[in-house]
């Protein structure tokens, strides 16, 4: 547990607003980066990070210091983002149904992918990642983009390490199947 965080948290618990601001500012970027990597939408990631930070501050008394504050905040952020993902999924189902109903293919949301300059391989890897299950994709992102060790991923997702290994193995195996069909991406 980071000593600075611990001291700041104690000050927040004592009612120090400046300490709360320090705590938020110290972790805002990390929360945003995590939210961005789950939601893939900067505006929504900012909202989710704010919600997560606010929730963390409101429920700070429930933080038991069993893990680092950053891990606890990651857990809250991941949960907040996953709820948003599910809401988004339902909205997409509605839109898909509408497009089916009225053949409205012309009204579609701008695709953030269009703003990214991809190599062909990166485009295929991104497409393959999108075809994984939500949890498998999240585990890969936490492991290889955020460089979190297995035990911390387990803490963030509130499952045991064995489950994370299972998800990782399954994700690699599915990724291999998805990428192997694209010539040259993997052997």
């Amino acid at each position: 547990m980071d000593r600075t965080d611990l001291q700041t948290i104690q000050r927040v618990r004592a009612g120090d607003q400046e300490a709360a601001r320090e705590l938020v500012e110290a972790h805002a970027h990390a929360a945003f980066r995590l939210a961005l990597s789950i939601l893939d939408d900067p505006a929504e990631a900012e909202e989710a990070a704010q919600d997560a930070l606010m929730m963390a501050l409101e429920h700070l008394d429930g933080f038991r210091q069993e893990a680092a504050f950053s891990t606890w905040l990651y857990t809250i952020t991941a949960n907040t983002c996953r709820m948003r993902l599910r809401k988004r999924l339902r909205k997409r189902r509605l839109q898909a149904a509408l497009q089916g109903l009225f053949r409205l293919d012309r009204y579609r949301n701008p695709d953030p992918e269009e703003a990214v300059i991809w190599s062909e391989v990166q485009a295929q890897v991104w497409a393959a990642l999108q075809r994984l299950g939500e949890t498998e994709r999240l585990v890969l992102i936490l492991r290889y983009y955020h460089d979190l060790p297995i035990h911390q991923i387990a803490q963030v997702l509130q499952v045991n390490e064995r489950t994370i290994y299972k998800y990782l193995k399954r994700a690699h195996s599915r990724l291999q199947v998805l990428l192997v069909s694209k010539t040259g991406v993997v052997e």
Partner: protein
Amino acid sequence: MKTLEHEQVRSRILSRYPLAEVELAAHLDSCPDCRAFARQVERHASLIKETLHVRWDPVEPPPRSVFSPIRFRRIFLIRKVSSSYRALAWAGGLLLLVAVLSWAIPRLALGQVFPAAPSFFNLFRRQPLRADTIIPNAEDLGEGWLLTAEKTDMEGSYYFDIDPNGNPTIGTHVTKTEPPFDPELIETVSMRGYAHSVQHWTLMAVVIVSNDTAQAETITKESMLNLGIDRDIPMDQYTFTDVTMGDEAKMVSLYEAQDEDLSLSFLAFRKGRVLVLVITWAPGAGLSTGQSQATALSEAQMLEIGRMIETRIP
């Protein structure tokens, strides 16, 4: 040297790449399968890293001071209240629990495992507005409005958005404010995080103000069937019911269709130049939406919704 099992090797490969340990290296030297697995993991890791960094690193994070002073004050007000009155809140909560239990227990139906969902009608009334225009410039059809509502469980999650009046709420934007529909009269509900809820349904109402009623009616009927056909629901699984909506409204049809993934209910009617198509769907047993168990809206509920919309047509 200690001998490692394949499973141990693979867990170590997943937990720490690049590979460094001597005993791991020794196993990999002698095991082509694990060697291939290690190469695969390293290759994937490198591809994922590269791809995700290209995608997300250029995105500028927001300023670190993400909270306005008002939000900060609100958080501290909540914290202050919660710490000062915790004991009082516990006692109050206990009393409330006793009151709720004494009210609820006599009303529990035998065999009802899950708590009932709140009445759609009540949700519909108290929620804020949301209406999206879906056919903004279709000259042949006039205008179309989409109203959505849904009720879902969130896998045991308890988070609600609470509006200033204390009602659970999400979604408040109105993208279209001109006539013919006064947005104040168009209501819909979107609610999430219903504690212990095991029901999930989605409602969509499409309201079309048509310049050519005959054509729009045909399109509406065909569209209803298209949705079913897209889902590969055989025609013999549709149940059609004729219903009269009222003196002015003419019922087109009400039907339901069901397959293992989806339960659909349709209601369509016309009132003057206005066509209304109400669709609800709920996942069937085959759809993997967490722990959900689907409950489609009943015919009576559909009609209730239809009549509610009908009375709001100017």
